[in-house]
């Protein structure tokens, strides 16, 4: 339960960072989606039920900080969590480069889903003019941020004591795969 609240706190902190601090230094296209990185981490390291519930709540938090309607990111992150779980069972995600590839895949999937939902449900097709050209910058920003967070996590975990597995990212969680 403590871990769950930690994820929620992390998501809220990331939302504040994305809304209040990053806009001071970075133009919109170069701002990383830190909550997406957290969602992918959740999908890889937590048990399915916890990942789903946390994904839905983090989606609702992101919806409260962006766009006009609640529900968009709730749905998008649900699919991202499920897709991540599917991928994590097929690939060796203990490898850091592969993990970055998962981040890249997650970013592409998220953009695809946001574009689909906004075009089909909200009839906001012009959003594609914004989304598509921004994808390469988003990929770079998200991968760089993920690498940075991974590095910090590694340092942080070493401070707490070494744990086996990729920076203790996957398979270290007691509840992974349950």
């Amino acid at each position, binding site marked *: 339960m403590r871990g769950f609240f930690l994820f929620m706190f992390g998501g*809220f902190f990331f*939302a*504040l960072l*994305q*809304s*209040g*601090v990053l*806009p*001071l230094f970075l*133009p*919109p*296209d170069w*701002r990383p*989606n830190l*909550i997406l990185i957290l969602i992918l981490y959740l999908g890889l390291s937590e048990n*399915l039920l916890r990942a*789903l519930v946390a994904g*839905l709540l983090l*989606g*609702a*938090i*992101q*919806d*409260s*900080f*962006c*766009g*006009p*309607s*609640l*529900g*968009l990111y*709730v*749905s998008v992150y*649900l*699919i991202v969590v*499920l897709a991540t779980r599917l991928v994590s069972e097929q690939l060796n995600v203990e490898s850091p480069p592969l993990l970055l590839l998962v981040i890249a895949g997650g970013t592409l999937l998220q953009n695809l889903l*946001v574009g689909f*939902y*906004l075009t089909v*449900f*909200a009839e*906001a*097709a*012009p*959003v594609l*003019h*914004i*989304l598509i050209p*921004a994808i390469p910058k*988003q990929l770079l920003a998200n991968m760089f941020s993920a690498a940075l967070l991974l590095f910090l996590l590694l340092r942080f975990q070493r401070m707490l004591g070494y744990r086996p597995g990729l920076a203790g990212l996957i398979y270290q969680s007691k509840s992974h795969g349950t």
Partner: protein
Amino acid sequence: MLILLFSYHLKVFLEQSVRELLRRYRFLLLAVALLLATVILYSYNLRQKTATTFFERAVITFASPFLHSVDHVVDFANGTWNDYLWLVNTRQRNLILTQENQKLRAQLQQVKEISLQNVRLRKLLAFVDDLDLPALPAQVIGEDASNWARTIIIDKGTDAGLVNGLPVVAAQGVVGRIIKIAPNSSRVLLITDASSAVAALIQRTRTRGVARGRGDDLSIEYALRNADINVGDLLVTSGMGGIFPKGLPLGRIKLVKTDQFGLFQQVQATPTVDFSHLEEVMVIVGENP
């Protein structure tokens, strides 16, 4: 008797099969049910565009003090950096500078900042005075947390008498309208957001159209192909949408293209407001004349 026995076995078999299916595909069924529920939630909220849900209000309300704090911390950091830290090298190069001199420079910097803010607010007030409508000043304290939506967060909400749908302007022109509201903060949908559409007209020729957001600029839809539109023309609100007062600047035409076929021209405009440097705005609280 045989029929009864057969139907009993069939019933047992079916029950076991259904139970087995439910057990085997429980995650898939759960995922599909959740996905359907989220799509329904999203579709429902799309219809309730102006309504702020309890969850959103709670999150915005909870986030508001943090955003205020972040704003203050950034101001403080900016102040410290501008007023003290960057002077360290100067002091090393020039030993004549005293502590008193530093304080004076810091004060001067503050006065300069206040004076610049004063100029911006005067412009804003003059703009709103011309409108002849009551308006409320507000500070921008946050931006959208995604890269595709264009919204900002301002530091005034229901406690200051604001409601959903009120137009927001800056000294250079239209900023957007309030879409979500909490007691001490509100979210404003910028005119450059892809879901924003404002009834507009070309000031010089009175050609009508709809200004739709494209992220950084605006596209003018439904401008007839024979309409007289030139690059550099000023685009203003037409007042037809019922939200923005008539005649407020929206943008300047930067591209006019007429295809070989089609009823309409392709027109694009650059917003008059520089959204990347937006600090103070005015919320028009009076009735649209």
